[in-house]
């Protein structure tokens, strides 16, 4: 079983295997986003209380979900990198950090913009938004630590440790809405409960969430492929690949 996994963890195999994935993922992202945006901006009926301003939800909630999802991916990759020393996991972690930070930033900004017509204020210090703000600093810290360490591999593994230390913060973020009564809306979708929003409003939300996810995998994959070449720069397969590229450039 581990031989099977190790084959896929092999940088060369992954690089070759993933050559077409980026394209497909980008296409899927474009299609899903088109469908989701149309559903969210056009088809979904205006909210009874918030009117059309609620349409920001189609960016805000998927961004918030991604900010947490990507962090969990990083924590998983970090654990794999530390325990099994798999280089691909290190590269995946470093590739994910700026994407996670971007989605966290978007969740905060759209949350703030949405808050102005909803609550009359640009910012409320409630548990959910505040925890998202802390998450942004966690992301920035991980990127700063990785950046401060010169050796690529040491930096990735140090970032992995920091990611795992921070992951304890994630349950506090996730359950903060339940722990404290806040101004922020209750969770709109839960695994077990029926969602509290109308189905026509819900579907574009889920579609946008999937679209953001494919976007993350597409962008992360591109970075990972670049990272693989850097990690394996001295191996034969990369040298051959580079040689062909150089020949194309000169040919």
């Amino acid at each position, binding site marked *: 079983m581990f031989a099977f996994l190790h084959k896929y963890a092999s940088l060369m195999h992954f690089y070759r295997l993933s050559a077409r994935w*980026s394209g497909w993922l980008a296409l899927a992202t474009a299609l899903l986003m088109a469908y989701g945006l149309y559903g969210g*901006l*056009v088809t979904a009926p*205006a909210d009874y209380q918030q*009117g*059309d*301003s609620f*349409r*920001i939800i189609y*960016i*805000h909630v998927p*961004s918030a979900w991604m900010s947490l999802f990507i962090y969990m991916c990083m924590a998983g990759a970090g654990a794999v990198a530390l325990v099994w020393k798999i280089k691909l996991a290190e590269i995946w972690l470093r590739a994910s950090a*700026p*994407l996670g930070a*971007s989605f966290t*930033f*978007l969740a905060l*900004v*759209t949350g703030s*913009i*949405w808050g*102005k*017509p909803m609550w009359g204020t640009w910012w409320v210090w409630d548990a959910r938004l505040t925890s998202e703000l802390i998450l942004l600093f966690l992301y920035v810290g991980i990127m700063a630590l990785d950046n401060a360490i010169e050796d690529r591999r040491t930096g990735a593994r140090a970032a992995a440790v920091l990611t795992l230390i921070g992951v304890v913060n994630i349950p506090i973020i996730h359950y903060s809405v339940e722990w404290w009564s806040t101004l922020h809306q209750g969770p709109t979708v839960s695994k077990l409960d029926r969602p509290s929003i109308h189905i026509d409003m819900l579907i574009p939300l889920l579609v946008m969430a999937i679209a953001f996810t494919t*976007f993350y995998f*597409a*962008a*992360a994959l*591109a*970075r990972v*492929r*670049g*990272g693989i*070449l*850097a990690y394996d*720069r001295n191996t034969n397969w*990369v*040298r051959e*690949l*580079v*040689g062909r*590229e*150089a020949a194309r*450039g*000169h040919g």
Partner: protein
Amino acid sequence: MAEFLAMGGYGAYVWSSYAITALVLGINALLARRAERTALQALAHDLTGDDDDATA
């Protein structure tokens, strides 16, 4: 169409949110593609640079 843009009076909020999102995701997409391309090109450049030294 004007109604669509106005978003029931909330147009500025809705469209600025979507615009910022498009900007941030767009930058991420560009940087990601650039990371993939320049990795290969930089290594190729190193290689050809070495070759030049070898022939000199």
